[in-house]
């Protein structure tokens, strides 16, 4: 039911007052009653006659005033007044509720999004009566929830229909929508109900200002406490087909350190548990060696002291162990047993050896390995150089040492070189962008770089003139170099990210593929040119099937959408904080107060009447 208009209110008052005046001013109906001794009444009235008449008239007058007051209060309650003291005067208001994945944070109960809906409803109390309001949901795109309306109930229902998404918020979409819908409207206002985890670009702010749109934010959320799994991947080890390596990137978005427990599960069974302390705003990677018997892996992070962080969505991540595609490498060498044996340990690497005099090019291979051979021809593929490199050799260095090592470089993962003895190395002229991974700048021993757009890794010494070939580091170093040069990791299927459409390959001649999600639902996807586009809605494992071939995929929340939850202002002043209705105690509204006053007067009238009955 909508409230009365002013004209309706006045009409209702006129009719009710007229009726009351008629009822009170007309001659009252008298009850005829036989009494045994009227003389007694005569004596009483004679003693108090004038006062009784005045008292009677006064009682009727007061009763009339109370009746007028009761009807007026009820009529005003139906009118549902919204005095200006409860909010500013408004024109056209677009209320946008941030529904990005970061709004799933639970630092406010039950979630920031639910709280945002409540705040948006509070806004309606003042604005809906004073101007037109529209409500929309903001995620990666805008979802209008209502048209322009003044009906508070319609707008409340629209707000209740909103659902939080798993996508990142795109504020620019809101600005575009606001500029379109608020164009040429009276006193346009845009209120964003958000935690401000995503900031508004200065350019978008200028666009709003130029269009004369008042921007306000209604803040929700207060905590930045969150430890997240930003990425999780499992890859097979090149040197051991029965082992795999899990990489988990953790992040603490809070300004305080937090002890956490990291659990790795294969299927549903924990296979590794470790405790560590994440420093304030620290991001770290954990590498774990695990068995490669399973395919589905989960990583879970939790607070050690039991108190949960504010964003549970990024506390679990999923990964699938898949085998990398086979690679072909061309070994250009006169023959070196240690080298060939070390390369043969990678079961997924096919080596073809030719002698240097037969080398022409390496087209068709994923990698070319030059052993004591430095061709001057253009490299078409990534290259690994042993005792050589794509540079000018200036001389030799006797007994160089591995005194400087870039421990974080992927080439040196699980590799120890510090006590390796080298008889002599080349003194070379490096390019500016070349990276010295081991050795000094003046005497580099292990270098990585790019030539003609192709990456290379080079040892500046002959491994035969060192004891490196006798170390376990040698095959690992080779595996790391091959893996990095062939971008094997990048060929592995990376987890899908929620809220984004991503392609996945299917056999080229299929027209449709089916996708089964974590909830068991089956969807049919249209394939084009050997790929389908997948936009996952839930984190978990997916099975993509086409032409009888199935592949397992993992989907995780986008850390950029989910993990950073620190509340912020979306824009600097003059974008101001929106005012909600100044709440009356116990959630009362003006109409409820008016109705309450009318009820009190009615109870008072009833009390007077009851007193007369008892008398």
């Amino acid at each position, binding site marked *: 039911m909508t409230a009365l208009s002013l004209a309706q209110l006045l009409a209702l008052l006129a009719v009710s007052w007229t009726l009351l005046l008629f009822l009170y001013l007309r001659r*009252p*109906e*008298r*009850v*005829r*009653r*036989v*009494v*045994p*001794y*009227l*003389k*007694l*009444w*005569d*004596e*009483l*009235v004679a*003693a*108090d006659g004038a006062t*009784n*008449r005045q*008292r*009677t008239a006064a*009682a009727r007058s007061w009763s009339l005033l109370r009746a007028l007051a009761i009807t007026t209060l009820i009529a005003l309650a139906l009118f549902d007044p919204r005095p200006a003291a409860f909010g500013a005067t408004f024109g056209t208001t677009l209320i946008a509720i941030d529904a990005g994945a970061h709004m799933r944070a639970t630092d406010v109960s039950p979630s920031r999004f639910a709280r945002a809906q409540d705040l948006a409803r509070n806004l309606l109390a003042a604005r809906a009566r004073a101007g037109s309001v529209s409500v929309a949901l903001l995620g990666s795109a805008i979802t209008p929830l209502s048209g322009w309306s003044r009906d508070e109930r319609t707008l409340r229902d629209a707000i209740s229909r909103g659902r939080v998404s798993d996508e990142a918020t795109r504020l620019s979409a809101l600005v575009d929508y606001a500029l379109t819908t608020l164009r040429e409207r009276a006193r346009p206002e845009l209120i964003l109900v958000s935690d401000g985890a995503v900031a508004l670009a200065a350019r978008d702010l200028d666009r709003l200002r130029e269009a004369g749109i008042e921007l306000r934010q209604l803040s929700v959320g207060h905590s930045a406490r969150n430890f997240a799994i930003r990425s999780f991947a499992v890859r097979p080890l090149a040197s051991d087909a029965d082992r795999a390596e899990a990489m988990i990137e953790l992040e603490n978005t809070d300004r305080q350190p937090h002890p956490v427990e990291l659990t790795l599960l294969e299927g549903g069974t924990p296979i590794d548990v470790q405790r560590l302390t994440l420093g304030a705003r620290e991001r770290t990677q954990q590498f774990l060696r695990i068995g490669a018997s399973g395919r589905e892996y989960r990583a879970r992070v939790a607070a050690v002291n039991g108190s949960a962080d504010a964003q549970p969505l990024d506390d679990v991540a999923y990964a699938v162990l898949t085998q990398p595609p086979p690679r072909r490498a061309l070994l250009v060498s006169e023959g070196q047993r240690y080298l060939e044996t070390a390369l043969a340990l990678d079961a997924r690497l096919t080596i073809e050896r030719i002698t240097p005099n037969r080398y022409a090019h390496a087209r068709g291979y994923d990698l070319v390995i030059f052993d004591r051979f430095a061709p001057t021809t253009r490299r078409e593929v990534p290259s690994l150089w042993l005792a050589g490199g794509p540079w000018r050799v200036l001389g030799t260095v006797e007994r160089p040492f591995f005194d400087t090592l870039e421990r974080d470089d992927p080439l040196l993962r699980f590799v120890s070189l510090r006590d390796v003895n080298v008889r002599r190395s080349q003194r070379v002229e490096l390019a500016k962008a070349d990276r010295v991974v081991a050795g000094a700048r003046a005497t580099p021993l292990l270098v990585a770089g790019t030539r003609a757009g192709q990456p290379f890794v080079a040892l500046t010494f002959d491994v035969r003139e060192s004891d490196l070939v006798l170390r376990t580091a040698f095959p690992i170093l080779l595996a790391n170099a091959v893996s990095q040069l062939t971008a094997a990791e990048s060929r592995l299927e990376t987890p899908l990210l929620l809220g984004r459409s991503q392609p996945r390959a299917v056999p080229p001649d299929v027209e449709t593929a089916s996708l089964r999600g974590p909830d068991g639902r089956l969807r049919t996807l249209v394939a084009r040119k050997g790929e389908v586009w997948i936009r996952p809605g839930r984190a978990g494992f997916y099975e993509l099937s086409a032409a009888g071939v199935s592949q397992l995929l993992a989907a995780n929340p986008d850390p950029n959408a989910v993990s950073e939850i620190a509340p912020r202002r979306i824009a600097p002043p003059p974008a101001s904080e929106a005012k909600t209705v100044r709440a009356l105690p116990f959630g009362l509204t003006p109409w409820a107060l008016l109705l309450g006053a009318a009820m009190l007067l009615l109870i008072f009238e009833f009390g007077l009447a009851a*007193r*007369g*009955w008892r*008398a």
Partner: protein
Amino acid sequence: MGPGSEFADYRDYSPGDDYRYVDWNAYARSERLLVRQHEQETELAVYALLDCSGSMAGKLAYSLKLTAAIAYVGLLRLDLLSVVTLRDRVVASSPPARGLARSREVLEFLRGVRAEGPTDLAAGCRAFVARTKRRGLAILISDLFDPAGAPAALDVLRRARFETRVLRIVDADVPAPGEYELVDAETQRVRRLAITPELLAAYRTAREREAEALARACVERHIPLHVLDTRTSAEDAILRLLRRSGMFR
């Protein structure tokens, strides 16, 4: 029931009883005021004087029950009973009767009683006294709403040497505040009146004062007064109040 030479029994003292018949020895023993009752050596004449004025209209049925009960007891005791209806005069009188065999006549008489007309109990009592040779017990059954004042009627009876008892019949019929057209039950006079709670309170106070004044008048004349509310059943009134007061043994 009246003064006589033979002691019959004790009964509780009622206001208005003659102090000469109070047994002080019994009081000393029991600390209760008791009155000696004597056997009447001659037969007792009992007169039930029923007010049938217009003000009794709302109480007539109750009063008739009461009168019938009194008559029955009197006939049972072989007293010489007469029922007399009066207002400003004697309206009617039943022939003296003795014994239960005459009870039908008395009831037939009571059946024909109507409450109407003005009240003047003194005039009515004077008319009664003038036509009654034989003295005895006069039980006045009335609401005592008398413009001339009820004590005057009591004086008439007392001076005529009737042993008098008064049964005042009252009802709790009080109007609620509101607008009324009050009609006097006897004179049919109409008065428009707004009864306010204050006026109602004054009315109640006036009624209470009136009741006190009547009670005082009865005490001064040594006439027992019993006030019977129509909310009390007539059976209770007869069995408890009247027996305790010794009006009937």
